């Protein structure tokens, strides 16, 4: 187990370095710069600003400087919000995205797993067909269609939940539901398939023969193997939740990290773009490691160092 962790960390370092380098040069070679705003800044001020942030130095020198600061954990100041450090901006915006992501995942698991188990237990009955048809619809209904529909029905027409903004828990419902339902659909299908396979295995039959109650067979014996596909899916799901949050934040006007990132890219806020990309990449790598550990714990066969 510890071998897995160590090897993953050793892999993560070059991965993150490549990502950072790629992003660095991509932003710098893109047309435009952080101080080319629509209202013209006098040339002297622009030159001064550029020299203040070291943008007049040779590119490779800037690159080295950025990495030197990065090694000390310093992401630098934002170019667009000069009073703010990039890390401060991330610390402000990320909790919003995290709340959204966690609630969506919770909804996805709470709906998806029971629905999939039910469908597997009562295969080929209406308890199977109904949730599976709904989940197919859920997969084909993109968040940016479902979101407006939910706003229209639950907010505009019925007035149960507020439609836009991010002020209190009641604002969390619609965005999390929009993002969560898609993953609930997916998880329901994976759970059903995994459970169907596991329920046929000998050890489940043995448990049944011992006279264990069907609930106990389901939760104690079959779930461990049957939920493996769901755990494997969690890795891509985390990445998906992050990309999904870009859309959700744009639909519901939520001040999350996704929105900050897109704005920063538009503004050519180099440090902010780089900082956000690095943050996301690290997060994803850590979450993937977590998923792998979870998988190793559930499935002894996968306990080998890759």
């Amino acid at each position, binding site marked *: 187990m510890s071998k897995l962790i160590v090897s993953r960390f050793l892999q993560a370092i070059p991965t993150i370095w490549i990502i950072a380098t790629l992003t660095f040069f991509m*932003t710098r070679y893109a047309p435009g710069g952080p101080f080319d705003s629509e209202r013209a800044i006098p040339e002297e001020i622009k030159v001064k600003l550029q020299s203040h942030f070291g943008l007049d130095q040779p590119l490779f020198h800037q690159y080295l400087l950025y990495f030197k600061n990065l090694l000390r954990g310093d992401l630098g100041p934002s170019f667009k919000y000069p009073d703010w450090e990039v890390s401060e901006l991330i610390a402000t915006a990320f909790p919003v995205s995290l709340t959204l992501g966690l609630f969506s995942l919770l909804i996805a698991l709470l709906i998806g797993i029971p629905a999939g188990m039910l469908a597997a237990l009562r295969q080929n009955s209406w308890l199977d067909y109904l949730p599976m048809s709904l989940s197919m619809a859920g*997969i084909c209904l993109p968040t940016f269609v479902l979101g*407006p529909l939910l706003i229209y029905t639950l907010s505009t027409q019925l007035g149960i939940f507020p439609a836009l903004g991010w002020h209190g828990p009641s604002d969390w419902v619609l965005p999390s539901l929009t993002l969560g339902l898609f993953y609930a659909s997916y998880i329901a299908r994976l759970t059903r398939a995994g459970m169907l396979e596991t329920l046929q295995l000998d050890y489940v039959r043995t448990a049944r023969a011992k006279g264990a109650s069907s609930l106990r067979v389901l939760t104690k014996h079959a779930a461990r193997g049957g939920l493996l596909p769901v755990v494997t899916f969690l890795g891509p799901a985390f990445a998906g939740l992050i990309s999904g949050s870009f859309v959700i934040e744009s639909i519901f006007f939520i001040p999350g990290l996704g929105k900050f990132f897109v704005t920063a890219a538009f503004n050519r806020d180099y440090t902010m773009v780089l900082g956000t990309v690095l943050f996301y990449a690290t997060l994803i790598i850590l979450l993937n490691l977590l998923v792998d550990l979870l998988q190793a714990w559930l499935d002894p066969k996968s306990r080998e160092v890759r």
Partner: protein
Amino acid sequence: MTQQSSSLGRDAWLRLRANRMAMLSIYLLLGIFLISLVGPWLSSYSYEQQDLDHIFQSPGKNHLFGTDNLGRDVFARTTYGGRISLAVGLLATLVSLVIGVTYGMLSGYLGGRMDAWMMRAVDVLYSLPFIIFVILLMVLFGRNFLLLFLAIGAVEWLTMARITRAQTLNLKKAEFVEAARALGYSHSRILFRHLLPNLIGPIIIYATLTVPAVMLLEAVLSFLGLGVQAPMSSWGSLIKEGAEKMDAAPWLLFFPGSFFCLTLFALNFLGDGLRDALDPKSSKD
């Protein structure tokens, strides 16, 4: 069974024809393709023609799908958007196909340490939030159509590479490959003349499933305002406009949204059906 003319392709076709959902999906897709192709010609309005005297008209005789906030005909815009969305879907899938199949075949064929490294790279890439790079690329270098294809294609090739590699690994031990090698054929000839034709089945299946994924990504980009530019339309950009004006004119969301969802639905069902038909061993789901 006694008929000897029962080839693999024919068997697959018979199995596919027995799958009612898959057949329905084929008809639905053909219908959507046809409407998108001829719709812009059939309509007496162009997709960009504004008519400020007739804004927000509900669907009716003059405008089948109504008009938008600038008086543009929604039918013309939806079908025209369909052309763009479908074109992006197909072309970007092609890009991902070329990258993925080449990479996968090479990895599987070379084998050994090279294979291990190449697949490890795919694993690493798999775990990255590519959408971030695609967004970054589109924002930084402008909304260039060619770039859109390349960016989307470059994201969606990973699974294709894995599938192709696994198949290549199996096939390269087969006798016909050994025979080709014994005949002294070059590696590229073995790869493209002998291995590739035998990979077509899984490639088709997965390509069918890639098209909806690609279309979804294009729609996400368009929805964020990074896809095609006005006055051009794609289903994604139309859905964005529709979502903004949902209260005043729900049909602006309804028509492009329905076309888009139905297409995704049909493509997913068709992909599943093809998988069952071409590879009976792999169970559904």
